[in-house]
């Protein structure tokens, strides 16, 4: 039977997660539907809610650190997305429980914060029984996943001066992101693209120059198009997808240079 474990320290949680069949639980909005729909029975559910540091929000001069229990709807993160907040992400009630770190490391559902976190230069602090605490890039974690037994404790984000995340979804709310492009201006920031439903997000290389300049739209669009071609084989990129991504890139650049700053 699955055990419920409530560690009060990171070290105790790491010990519990040394069992590869144990699963960490932060908000639970990804884990519980997985348990309900699959009937899977992990050896243990390691709840992080009693770890005081997991709720920490640290604002530094050039960044933001969010503990593993900090929700997507937290004002420190939600404010990045303008008046509507992260309104595109699930429902208001789910946003109050689903965590930023949990979405990034989840093996169980679409990781739709991926483009945002990569664009904001996110680093994830991990710890496992096999390795000392250290930082991994969000891009690496999204691509490779966490090593077995590793616990994601914290995410560190650069503080963007401006950020825009444009998406193509069947609906504007509660809908899977099919194609998404996020770009941010600020130290350590950049752009990231997701071009398949529930797929990985990819950093757009060489986007910085066009991104930072108000008159750099054409260069930015070219780097995004190049990034799409680099991330996917040409067989997967139809004219429709390239047209869509081009339009997103134009809008994101316009947002950044003609929209509101944070």
């Amino acid at each position, binding site marked *: *039977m*699955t*055990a*419920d474990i*409530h560690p009060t320290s990171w070290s105790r949680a790491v010990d519990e997660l040394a069992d590869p069949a144990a699963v960490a*639980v932060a908000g*639970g*909005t990804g*884990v*519980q*539907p997985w*348990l*309900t*729909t699959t009937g*899977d*029975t*992990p050896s243990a*559910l390691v*709840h992080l*809610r009693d770890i005081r540091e997991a709720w920490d929000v640290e604002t530094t001069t050039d960044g933001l650190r969010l503990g593993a229990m900090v929700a997507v709807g937290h004002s420190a993160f939600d404010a990045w997305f303008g008046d509507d907040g992260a*309104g595109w992400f*699930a*429902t*208001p*009630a*789910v946003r*109050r*429980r689903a965590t930023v770190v949990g979405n990034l490391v989840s093996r169980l559902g679409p990781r739709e914060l991926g483009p945002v976190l990569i664009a904001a230069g996110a680093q994830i602090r991990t710890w496992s029984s096999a390795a000392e605490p250290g930082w991994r890039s969000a891009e690496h974690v999204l691509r490779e996943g966490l090593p077995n037994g590793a616990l994601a404790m914290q995410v560190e984000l650069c503080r963007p001066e401006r950020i825009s995340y444009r998406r193509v979804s069947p609906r504007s*709310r*509660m809908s899977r992101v099919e194609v998404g492009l996020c770009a941010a201006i600020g130290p350590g920031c950049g752009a990231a693209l997701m071009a398949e439903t529930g797929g990985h997000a990819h950093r757009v290389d060489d986007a910085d120059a066009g991104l930072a300049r108000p008159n750099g739209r054409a260069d930015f669009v070219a780097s995004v198009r190049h990034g799409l071609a680099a991330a996917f084989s040409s067989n997967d990129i139809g004219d429709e997808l390239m047209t869509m991504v081009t339009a997103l890139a134009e809008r994101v650049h316009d947002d950044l240079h003609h929209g509101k700053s944070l």
Partner: protein
Amino acid sequence: MTSSTRVDGADVQLPDGGTASLWNVLDEAGVAPPFGCGTGHCGACTVLVDGVPAPSCVVPAGAVRRAEVNTVSTAVLDELVDALAVEGAVQCGFCSPGMVVTLSWAVRGAAAQERALTDAEVRELLVGHLCRCTGYQAIVAATTATSRSLVSTAPITPA
């Protein structure tokens, strides 16, 4: 070690391990709201967990240890229920328990700030509550009317 949670003011034992959700716990206790999608999107099973609306289907039972849970039985605002009835905002009733929990919470929150909810705020809250009968308009009207009635200096909402 067994643990418990408070549901509508009464102690309810939580399962000693397993993969149950909060909804399963409420079902076992005989106070479960309707079970809808099971993924947190339809809002039918919404309850208050420590004073905040949450779909009980996506909350692991182990995550409500020592928490305070309120179902529609104790989270509801009577004035809102009356207004929903007056506006004809309930048809099949499947979505109503969860929706009333969320809207009661929001109306109370706005009243505490001495202001009334706007149409836009109510519609945003309803993003997490699927209703296939009413078309939402009557629900929005009932909620904003209730919200206005609870504040003495309610702003006038343009028609």
